[in-house]
């Protein structure tokens, strides 16, 4: 245990990477101390992250007893089915429902994240400007983000009710919460309303670290507002924006409470992967539920990986180098 923790906690700096034997006694002692200090964190992580994942994986390979004995009692016990649950998900009678849920999840993620990114940038640009009442605007933009999702879903359910505000304003008689395309739209509107401020806030943080003189120089060179935005603001705010988009994507891939409360259960037009997993679990079918959850986990992991690889290959590197360049002048002065 100690030796493992020790090796696990080798300092990250470049020099320590050489062969172990050459390490000085002091370095070894420091490493041991580091290992001891880090181990509680690793333990907690193991308990709350690794163990549930492994348990879910294991669970997804079993099914619950389904038979009934002569007295009418359910025969207890789990049966090992190998990949049976996964086969059912992909090709069983419920496969159409699964693929529909995958499509919904992907569709909601794409549309809402794109809209949120656009709106978020606009919000950030507005909040970044100096004007009277800026504090008030900044605070009020954050209100939707501060409301719990289930509560905001309830609010939107009233707004989208058949005799609600939306129908009254548009003069329509659309049944938003019934199954169908309007339900999708309702979910997208509510989701964007709620989470665009989050993107806005992160982008605002990115905007605030851009030095003013860059803009002044551009203005002196005769760049118009659009050119300044496209060639200065956007590239410089990109790391913050990408982080925000990544967070939002991971979040909306596991969307559950908004469609659940706003539209309802078992509505094909808004059913997401999380809702399928919930549905199975609530019917005491933990094996299939775990299979759905595992598939969703893999899907989210792949999307995140692909996103970082394709769009943000230098996401972390960029942030690190920015931090380094920001620190260096300070050191020089000192």
């Amino acid at each position, binding site marked *: 245990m100690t030796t*493992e923790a020790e*090796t696990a906690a080798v300092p990250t700096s470049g020099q320590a990477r050489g062969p172990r034997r050459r390490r000085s006694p002091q370095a070894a002692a420091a490493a041991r101390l580091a290992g001891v200090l880090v181990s509680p964190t*690793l333990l907690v992580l193991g308990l709350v992250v690794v163990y549930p994942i492994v348990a879910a994986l294991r669970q997804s390979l079993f099914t619950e007893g389904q038979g009934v004995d002569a007295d009418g009692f359910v025969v207890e016990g789990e049966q090992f089915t190998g990949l049976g649950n996964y086969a059912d998900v992909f090709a069983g009678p419920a496969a159409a429902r699964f693929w529909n849920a995958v499509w919904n999840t992907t569709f909601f993620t794409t549309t809402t994240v794109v809209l949120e990114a656009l709106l978020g940038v606009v919000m950030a640009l507005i909040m970044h400007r100096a004007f009277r009442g800026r504090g008030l605007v900044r605070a009020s933009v954050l209100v939707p983000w501060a409301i719990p999702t289930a509560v905001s879903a309830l609010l939107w359910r009233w707004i989208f009710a058949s005799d609600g505000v939306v129908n009254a304003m548009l003069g329509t008689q659309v*049944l938003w919460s019934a*199954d169908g395309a309007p339900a999708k739209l309702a979910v997208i509107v509510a989701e964007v309303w709620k989470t665009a401020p989050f993107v806005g806030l992160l982008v605002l943080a990115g905007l605030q670290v851009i030095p003013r003189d860059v803009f002044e120089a551009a203005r002196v060179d005769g760049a118009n507002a659009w050119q300044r935005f496209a060639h200065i603001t956007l590239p410089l705010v990109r790391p913050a924006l990408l982080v925000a988009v990544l967070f939002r994507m991971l979040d909306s891939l596991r969307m559950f409470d908004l469609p659940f409360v706003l539209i309802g259960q078992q509505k094909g037009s808004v059913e997401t992967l999380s809702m399928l997993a919930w549905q199975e679990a*609530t019917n005491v079918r933990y094996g299939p539920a775990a299979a759905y959850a595992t598939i969703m986990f893999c899907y989210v992991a792949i999307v995140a990986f692909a996103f970082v690889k394709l769009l943000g290959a230098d996401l972390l590197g960029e942030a690190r180098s920015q931090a380094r360049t920001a620190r260096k002048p300070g050191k020089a002065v000192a």
Partner: protein
Amino acid sequence: MRQRNRLAIAAVLTCTAALTAGCGGSSTNEPSAALEGRGPITFVAGKDEENVNPKIVEAWNKAHPDEQVRFIELSSSADDQRQQMVQNAQTKSDAFTVLDLDNVWTTEFAANRWISELPREQFGVDKFVPTTVETSLYRDRLYGVPATSDGAMLYFREDLLAKAGVQPPTTWEEMRQACDKVLALPEAAGMSCFAGQYEKYEGLTVNFAEAVHGAGGVVTDPNGKPQVNTPEAKRGLDALVEGFRAGTIPRDAITFKETETRRAFMDGKIVFSRAWPNQYSHAAKNDGSSGVAGKFDVAPLPGVAGPGVSSLGGHSLAISAFAKNKATAVDFIKFATAPEQQRLRLDQGSLAPTLSELYDDPSMQAKYPYLPLLKKSIEGAEPRPRVIKYGEVTDVIQEHVYAALRGEKPSDQALADLQARLQELTGQQ
């Protein structure tokens, strides 16, 4: 770098394995059939609006200092309540003793041996409305004692019916004719005829079962075999489908749960509504929230050839198989279902009792004028399908009925599909 990560993961796994091994040794409670042992217990129920359960627990605790009951309040959502009770059973925990079960869960809990069989003769269930006791039986053995009940009624606009000179209808056909006359009145401009609950949730199963039973059909026969692909069931479902198509049922009723139906009735948008008794006190309020106070009355649900059949609601008290101090639990259930407590529930929480005599009590009738009618509704009510996989059964019923109501599937197709799925789920071919 990679090497280090792998080692870190290995370290974590070792720690976790060691820890779980340590935890795994704790004792699990095996279910015992004997109802023995005295001492502290818990009573687990969903949140009720009027907070009657805490009062009952308090009254018990005053009289039984050595057998205290701790009240565990779950959320008001039925799904959440069931989930927590199932989890308690799956971990074989002794945290929950007396469970307040929705009567549609009895079969599932009994068949899984999550609740203990109860000695029928000890609870005086002969004095209860027979249908309420029926929902607490599994294979003719008692698993719960019904504490509350519920039956639907037809709410109607007495003022408009009187003006149009029509009697409260007893059949769907009479209701349609009554609507033709009432909706021709200038006061009824813009109103619709009838609404129940047709959103995709438990209420849809309730309304569908009522339509089928009202047309002389069944959802499951006495042997538990699904029978929805029948001419009677089709006539029942068609009554709803036709109602939507002809506009007798307003189009937006497809989004109605109990609250929406109540609002539509109280705002004067519908002449007739199918609702539980709790709509009565809301609609009768004189504080301006109801537009129909003093203008409505109740009647039995209509059916095809005569009065219809309500679906049976209600809760019963059961004992978790994994609990301790079950003798105390038996006594507490007797106490909580005794006449005084049932009266308290009715009086303060307007919850329908299961004891027949309370419906005939003049002082209660003075407070709740609908009691004689409700008694009839409950006496003639049909339980929803009593099947082990009720959760999945109600899901597939909602799925197919909803599709039929929205015109996505012809009703005979929907019923044939539903029959096939129900046979799969109940294991009856």
